[in-house]
């Protein structure tokens, strides 16, 4: 009876279990926009627009569009561009590429395909740092659910980007 009671209780609330605690897309968008102030892209690598690509998470694309508005990054107008998971070649023109929630499985193929490109890779999955991604955003449940970021300086510099020491100072240690 006791075991059954506990099982039913778990099942009754199972819809809630299926929802993981996720980053707030508006805050994530603001973080990404702020990163552009601390990273320097090689002058020749920029086109007419500063392109932020988003793989997965359509909510993040919407959030970014609301945030960037008419703002600029590296002196260029910003374009937010959804990237199809099967169109890795479309990501080649991006300055920032974000792997939204649910796209963690694509990280390996994208990072391999984009090697040598001057792209800042950002993810919401911690394991991304070990797969060559430059910045990982996390929800710090130990600190009142604040959003933090961890940084792989080597990966960013390998992509030919310069990262400011103040950004390194603000990042959370791995």
């Amino acid at each position: 009876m006791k075991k059954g009671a506990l099982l039913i209780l778990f099942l009754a609330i199972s819809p809630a279990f299926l929802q993981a605690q996720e980053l707030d897309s508006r805050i994530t968008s603001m973080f990404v926009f702020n990163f552009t102030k601390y990273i320097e892209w090689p002058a020749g690598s920029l086109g007419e627009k500063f392109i932020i690509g988003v793989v997965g998470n359509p909510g993040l694309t919407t959030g970014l569009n609301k945030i960037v508005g008419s703002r600029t990054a590296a002196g260029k107008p910003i374009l937010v561009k959804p990237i199809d998971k099967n169109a890795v070649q479309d990501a080649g023109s991006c300055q920032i590429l974000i792997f939204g929630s649910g796209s963690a499985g694509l990280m390996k193929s994208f990072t391999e395909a984009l090697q040598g490109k001057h792209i800042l890779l950002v993810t919401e999955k911690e394991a991304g740092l070990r797969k060559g991604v430059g910045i990982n955003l996390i929800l710090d449940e130990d600190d009142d659910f604040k959003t933090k970021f961890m940084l792989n300086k080597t990966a960013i510099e390998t992509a030919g980007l310069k990262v400011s020491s103040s950004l390194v100072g603000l990042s959370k240690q791995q």
Partner: protein
Amino acid sequence: MNCLSFVYLYARQRIYLFMLFFSFTHSFMKHCLLSSLFILFLCSSVQAQHTDTLSIENLSLEELLKLRSTGVSSEMEKIINEKLGVASKKPLSIRKSPSIVSVISEDEIRKSGARDLVDVLRQVPGFDFGVDVQGVVGFAVRGNWSHEGKVLVLLDGQEMNETLYGTVPLGNNFPVQQIKRIEIIRGPGSAIYGGYAEYGVVNIITKSGEDLNGGSLDVVYGQMEKTFARRNVYASWGRKMGGWKVSLAGLIGQGNRSDRTYTDIDTGSFDMAGNSQFNPSYANLGVSYRNTSVRIIYDRLHLTTRDGYVAVLSKPYDNNFTNYYAELRHDWKVNDKFIITPRFNFKSQTGWNNQQTILLEDSSYSYNNKTANRYRFNLTASYDITHNLNLTGGGEFFNDYAVARGADTTLFQKYVNDSVSQPLASVSYQNYAAFVQCLWRNRVVNITLGARYDNSSAFGGAFVPRIGLVKNVQKFNFKLLFGYSFRAPAIENISTAYRGQMRPERSRTLEFEAGRQIGRNSYLTLSLFSFTTLNPIIYFYEEVTDREFYRNREQGGSRGVEVEYKVKQTWGYLSANYAFYSVAGQTIVPEYQIGGINNLNLAFPAHKINVNAAYRLGDHFSINPSASFMSVRYGLATNDTVATRFNPVLLLNLFLTYDHLLTEGLSLGAGCYDVLGQNFQFIQPYNSLHAPLPGPSREFVFRLSYRFQHTKL
């Protein structure tokens, strides 16, 4: 508007409590489940408040890092997400701690006008109190007598349990005016803390030098119907100066346990006014420099008793507790991920001390003068393997040494065989322990695996593993916990072990908790527990030999449910909880049994409801009602094997506070405890011929406080 909110929340709380109360008039688990589901779904229907309107478009990276994912934290969110150190080797929030945890804040203690630790902990679900002997009151947890070495009490990290029996006498002691926070594990804690934490842990944290940054003085006076209950002075000072933090706090006072008449089981009686003194004196010095800290505590409790063991005594005798504690600790941060903490503790305690000459007519009482010392080395290492994986482990050694002082130097004994014992002037035992804890956070469920192994030269080994599964899903949190805990036989348990045989008792506990943040300002938890204690160590008196002993009984335990609801708004706060336990269907310890009643233990009610609220009227004035309801209890009040029925009790209290009276920092508090004059009695929870001990009568309490702050350096 505030009044309406209060009434609405109060009414909603009444519905929750009624549902739970109703459920237990029928079979326990079935209705408990229905109630759980009802409550969770009811809560789910309450719309959460969002902060989408929060403007973040112009925030810098530094500002974003301070922002919570759903906006700025409410006061309640800060509380439930604040890190606690009590339930895990690595600090975690209430919602994520792998234990059933309660937290009591400084504000709740101060506003309620709590007179002592009994008032504070009475508000904790599942906590009760009973009388032992010699006027000493102690803990019970979840319907089980826990006084002797089953609840660990820490004060600023120092183990307060006296080493002879493991007890913590409660009354007009402990510096309630200086407490910053109390963190409580309502359940097993041995996998972290060892042999005193079988049923629970009470971790009292007083204000540090940084918290104080100034000084405070509190004068408290309590008046019962016939005499004063307490007249205490509390003083503290502290400051942070560069890397240094210094705090010094003290308490000196006088008190009377009660002013009512104690009647023993043979109708002998005495007036407790003037015959039940409870006089504390206490000093606490804390100094830290960067990662190194020193703590020294002096704590003395002068009690007088005429209730003795069975028959009343002809005059009051001393029953003193004099304790010294010291700690030296260093947190060596090898790097950001790896911390090694060596710690040395020493405590010297002279408890249950009476050096007066015993009159012939009081031969049942005895001279007792023993000191027990414990020194302890602990080395703990904590390594964050990744952001989501922490491994903590270490080892501990402690040595207990107890010696009889004064005229009688043969107060300990050692059994040569089953029946012949050899008197000893001193005893010494060593204990080695190793412990480990792995905390793995992942998307499915957070897992805590831990274990501790103790090996004592007195009683052998005790291994206590535990596993905790914790899941937070947005506003919900769930905990499924299973583990073992143990009680280490104390020096006197070993010395007076029946036929020289004594094993540690072990408990096996299964717990489930579901929590729900309702809106942004309230939090509801529901906990189910079931635990079995194997080989409980029980005191008994053998008439044939006219001697007292301890022995391992077969089994004990209980199961039940606890519901806790807290709301904190601009108008104030409300904290309410309900606790239920039953021993039905379990083997009951014979000494705890009530004839004809098979679901209760002696002394403790099946149902308990607590409410503690504060309602602000203006910026300085607050009205603070609190109440505790206890259902029927049973106890032995006469020289008869049939237990007496004690009617339900409603302890109703009201305390008013006015801050910044006339000048900044000056506060006045006044109120009444036991407004209804219910005359609560502490019942002895085991069948040992001690009549119920009267608590205080209706008490009027006055408190004058002054706090000042230094300019921050």
